[in-house]
């Protein structure tokens, strides 16, 4: 790909020996798309009843990161990045996510090689809040970093007879208060009904879709995630919502033993050795599924934006 030389790829990224995905979004969407419910029900391709409204998540788009005052920010590797966004709606942290308060991007592939031990996700990303209104008359009332609640990266995978959600999220803000901590996907000891906000008969199982299932608590805890020990980190946000800095993220997993290995965010490496990945009995029709996911969630009634310049997924 002319946008991205091998030298640049291996300088910006640290891929394992077998590269599955090397997507630079200035060349297009590369198969990343919005997450939608399953349209499987009569009479008109309707969706199953669910406590979580899944059709309000906004579409992904190719963004120039264009703002009112500076104009176009562009991307790290060209003019365009993959943009996730939310609608200007939000519930309090401890409530179920409001319809449209999360934005997702997903790519869908499958395992192609039996010999696989490690799986790695890397990306260059940036995030900001919409510059739509100034809050109050106080100093820095026009800076809205704490309107972004969280962003994360996950794999939804099924192989060798079991399914697993594995990933990390950065909890930036809880009800407007800075939190700045990493959490990894692992469900608390709850029933399937508790997992689905106390709803009996919602078709989801504990451990599946932690992006929007799993009860949340006002101190930042979440039944779908656990705090990464020592996982406090201030990321580089810049000083105004219309200046974005591109940041590096890397998540390394041992999928043979279903364990996390490490997280790298910017220049810090967090040892995750031995933290388990939770497995669920296999679902029908999806053996071999390998779906990377990126998501963002707001913490205020304004849009927030998450930009991805490029993604590298590799295995060995």
């Amino acid at each position, binding site marked *: 790909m002319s946008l991205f030389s091998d030298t640049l790829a291996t300088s910006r990224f640290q891929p394992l020996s077998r590269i599955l995905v090397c997507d630079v979004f200035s060349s297009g969407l590369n198969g990343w798309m919005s997450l939608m419910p399953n349209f499987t029900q009569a009479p008109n391709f309707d969706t199953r009843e669910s406590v979580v409204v899944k*059709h309000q998540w906004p*579409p992904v*788009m190719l963004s*120039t990161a264009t703002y*009112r005052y500076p104009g176009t920010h562009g991307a790290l590797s060209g003019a*365009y990045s993959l*943009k996730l966004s939310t*609608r200007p709606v939000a519930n309090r942290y401890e409530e179920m996510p409001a319809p449209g308060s999360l934005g997702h991007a997903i790519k869908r592939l499958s395992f192609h090689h039996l010999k696989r031990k490690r799986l790695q996700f890397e990306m260059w990303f940036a995030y900001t809040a919409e510059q739509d209104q100034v809050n109050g008359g106080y100093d820095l009332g026009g800076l809205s970093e704490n309107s972004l609640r969280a962003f994360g990266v996950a794999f939804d995978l099924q192989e060798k007879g079991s399914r697993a959600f594995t990933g990390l999220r950065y909890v930036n803000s809880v009800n407007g208060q800075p939190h700045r901590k990493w959490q990894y996907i692992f469900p608390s000891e709850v029933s399937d009904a508790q997992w689905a906000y106390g709803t009996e008969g919602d078709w989801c199982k504990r451990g599946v879709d932690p992006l929007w299932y799993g009860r949340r608590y006002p101190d930042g805890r979440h039944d779908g995630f656990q705090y990464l020990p020592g996982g406090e980190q201030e990321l580089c946000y810049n000083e105004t919502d219309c200046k974005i800095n591109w940041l590096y993220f890397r998540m390394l997993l041992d999928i043979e033993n279903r364990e996390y290995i490490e997280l790298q965010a910017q220049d810090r490496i967090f040892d995750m050795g031995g933290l388990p990945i939770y497995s669920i009995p296999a679902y029908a029709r999806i053996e071999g599924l390998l779906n990377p996911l990126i998501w963002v969630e707001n913490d205020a009634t304004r849009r927030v934006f998450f930009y991805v310049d490029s993604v590298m997924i590799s295995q060995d």
Partner: protein
Amino acid sequence: MRQFQAAHLEVKKTFSEDFQTHPFEAGWASEAIFFVMVENVSGEGTRFEAEVEISHDGVHWTGEGSVLGPLEEKGLHFVRVSHFGNWLRLNCRISGNRPALQLLIQIALKE
């Protein structure tokens, strides 16, 4: 090979009041079509119309001049637009007595 993206702006949602679609960045594309699929209509004298709007920042909007409708019946409708800069949305107006429309709105972009 040309670039193309079709993206949902609303999926099977029922509207009874005026609304605007999600701000969409389309700077890479030179042409766009907004498709509006009306899946269900109820109420008396229910009418839907939409105006294409453009923006320099995704926050402030002004009419581009292209209009879809007014329409009153189920089916697929569209409006074309080109030379729009970066940001695009539809400003949608609904009128009638207890109006309700179930809509599927998609933007189709091409370069």
